[in-house]
């Protein structure tokens, strides 16, 4: 039905209600003359109105259990020392309830682990051990595990009840402001440090397992236990994926490796998701994880040896980031304008180096012999390396700004070395050319000195303009 038809229907219906009951239908036919369909529609509505009786007049009534039970019968019951209040959530792994521990009068999150058969005594023992290890972690950013309970043959883990919302729901609303994203990541790293120090690796870190409390604090939930569950899943439902593949480090996915660095990897994924609002491997993105920040990029290295080697190292980087600047997600914001001069510098230097190969070729003939060859080869080699690297940096800066800092870190040593070689070789060549070709000698020496001073004076200036904060490190 179109909007204007609906509006007409509304007018007709309301108008009819204003008439005395016994003349309503006649009034309606009169008014809607010429529009058969509308007349019939209005008449049908009027009849429905007259026969509706008490339909919807009283607000909905329900049984208490309608609110507490979804399809699991535990809500509203007493289980051991726990009054189960309601279901908080469920995953493939188990159901979590909000419950009250009647002994201590405190509210807890009670997680029902999947039913384990008596035959799985070893698994049961393993679960116990994992829960005990998780219970030793004590940190404000970690949801405290209180107890492993065995009630009526089923295993439950009681842990701190946290009121808040999962990080996932914030990410769903779009990218998180970088300073806040890095601060949340730092809190997660702190939680990981506490856990790793206690010998517990999370193994299933993801935005669903990070809760922002109503007070605004960050809490990481499900330490260690997630892994216990995945063992269980593997045993009970063979063929099912273990854990959450999108957050698992390559070596974890492939070889089932579980050292602390898998958590560092997941931290990088979560940080990227916070900064961009999207998973780094989401459809439409390039296959290799493109980082929104250098830190996330380091965390997500395929080879665990290329990552931060511990959560502590990652935290140090995050803290530096938070101290030195309000990071801008380059992925989104594009290159800041101040990098223009730096890019210009790179392009001009590359051009000059390439052009200078030609006069040096002439100089080689003038100098002659071994010396001429040596000068030319040195200039050529230096120019090739310097031009290649500078163009690489220029290209990265223009098209993959997120990777620029990392690329610079790798290339700058070689750039400096080739600059030094280039300048030295040119000056030496100019001196050797001497009086037979004064113009050439002057050109070689002048460009050599220019190159040296450019890399000593101009380059630091343009670099400072482009990477102010980054270079203070």
């Amino acid at each position, binding site marked *: 039905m179109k909007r204007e038809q609906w509006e007409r229907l509304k007018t007709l*219906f309301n108008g009819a209600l204003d008439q005395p009951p016994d003349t309503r239908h006649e009034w309606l036919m009169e008014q809607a003359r010429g529009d058969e369909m509308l007349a019939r529609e209005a008449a*049908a*509505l009027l009849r*429905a109105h007259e026969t509706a009786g008490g*339909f919807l007049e009283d607000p909905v009534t329900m049984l208490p259990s309608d609110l507490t039970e*979804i399809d699991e019968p535990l809500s509203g019951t007493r289980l051991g020392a726990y009054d189960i209040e309601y279901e908080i959530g469920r995953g493939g792994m188990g159901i979590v309830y909000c419950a009250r521990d009647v002994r201590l009068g405190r509210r807890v999150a009670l997680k029902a682990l999947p039913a384990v058969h008596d035959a799985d005594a070893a698994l049961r023992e393993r679960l116990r051990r994992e829960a005990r290890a998780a219970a030793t972690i004590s940190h404000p950013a970690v949801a405290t595990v209180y107890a492993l309970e065995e009630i009526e043959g089923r295993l439950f883990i009681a842990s701190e009840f946290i009121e808040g919302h999962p990080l996932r729901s914030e990410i769903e609303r779009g990218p998180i402001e970088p300073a806040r994203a890095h601060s949340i990541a730092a809190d997660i790293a702190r939680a990981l440090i506490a856990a790793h120090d206690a010998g517990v690796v999370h193994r299933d870190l993801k935005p669903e397992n990070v809760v922002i409390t109503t007070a605004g604090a960050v809490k990481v939930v499900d330490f260690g236990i997630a892994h216990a569950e995945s063992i269980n899943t593997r045993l009970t439902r063979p063929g099912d994926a273990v854990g959450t593949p999108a957050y698992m480090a390559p070596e974890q996915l492939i070889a089932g490796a579980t050292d602390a660095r898998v958590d560092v990897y997941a931290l990088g994924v979560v940080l990227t998701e916070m900064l961009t609002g999207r998973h780094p491997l989401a459809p439409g993105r390039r296959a290799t994880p493109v980082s929104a920040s250098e830190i996330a990029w380091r965390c997500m290295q395929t080879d665990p040896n290329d990552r931060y080697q511990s959560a502590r190292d990652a935290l140090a980087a995050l803290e530096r980031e938070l101290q030195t600047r309000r990071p801008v997600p380059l992925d989104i914001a594009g290159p800041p304008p101040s990098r223009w001069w730096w890019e210009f510098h790179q392009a001009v230097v590359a051009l000059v180096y390439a052009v200078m190969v030609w006069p040096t070729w002439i100089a080689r003939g003038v100098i002659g012999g071994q010396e001429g060859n040596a000068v030319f080869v040195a200039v050529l080699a230096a120019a090739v390396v310097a031009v290649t690297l500078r163009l690489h940096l220029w290209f990265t800066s223009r098209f993959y700004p997120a990777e620029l800092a990392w690329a610079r870190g790798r290339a700058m040593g070689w750039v400096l070395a080739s600059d030094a070689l280039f300048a030295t070789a040119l000056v030496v060549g100019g001196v050797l050319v001497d009086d037979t070709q004064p113009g050439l000698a002057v050109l070689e020496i002048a460009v050599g000195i220019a190159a040296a001073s450019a890399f000593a004076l101009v380059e630091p200036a343009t670099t400072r303009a482009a990477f102010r904060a980054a270079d203070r490190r």
Partner: protein
Amino acid sequence: MGSDPESLMPLVYDELRRIAAGYIRRERPGQTLQATALVNEAFVRLAAEKARPFANRTHFLAIAALSMRQILVQRARARKAAKRGGAPQRVTLDERLLSAEGPTVDILALDEALTRLAALDEEQARIVELRYFGGLTVEETAEAVGSSPATVKRQWAMARAWLKRAIDATSEDGLDAAP
């Protein structure tokens, strides 16, 4: 945290369920809860808390109505799925008592019809949600939708007739025969 309905819903949702759990523990068999009473109790309890993220009572009631609709629809769906799946149904004494209590509304059919009504007339659908699922009075509803009580009454009458017709048509021939 903002004060948009989405971020506040879990809070209301949990409070409603907590109250219901309390009723269950006190074991009053056959007791049914009415939306009006439940929602008001939830408001009183949440209002007593220190941090009150609600602009005002009407704001709270509107969120509560939305939560209630979601909870009940979810519950009805789960029940229907259990029946279809042939899982043993837990028919409690309460449920048998309730079904003998005269005309009841098929929540799933109502929810579906309400969604269709919202496409035609968002305000009418909202008024139904507030009045039926939230138990709001005409005056409270008028405040929540920013309208006059007289207008709410008219909109309510038409929405009720439209829904009645839509649900009857669906249940009679089981097809999409609504207007």
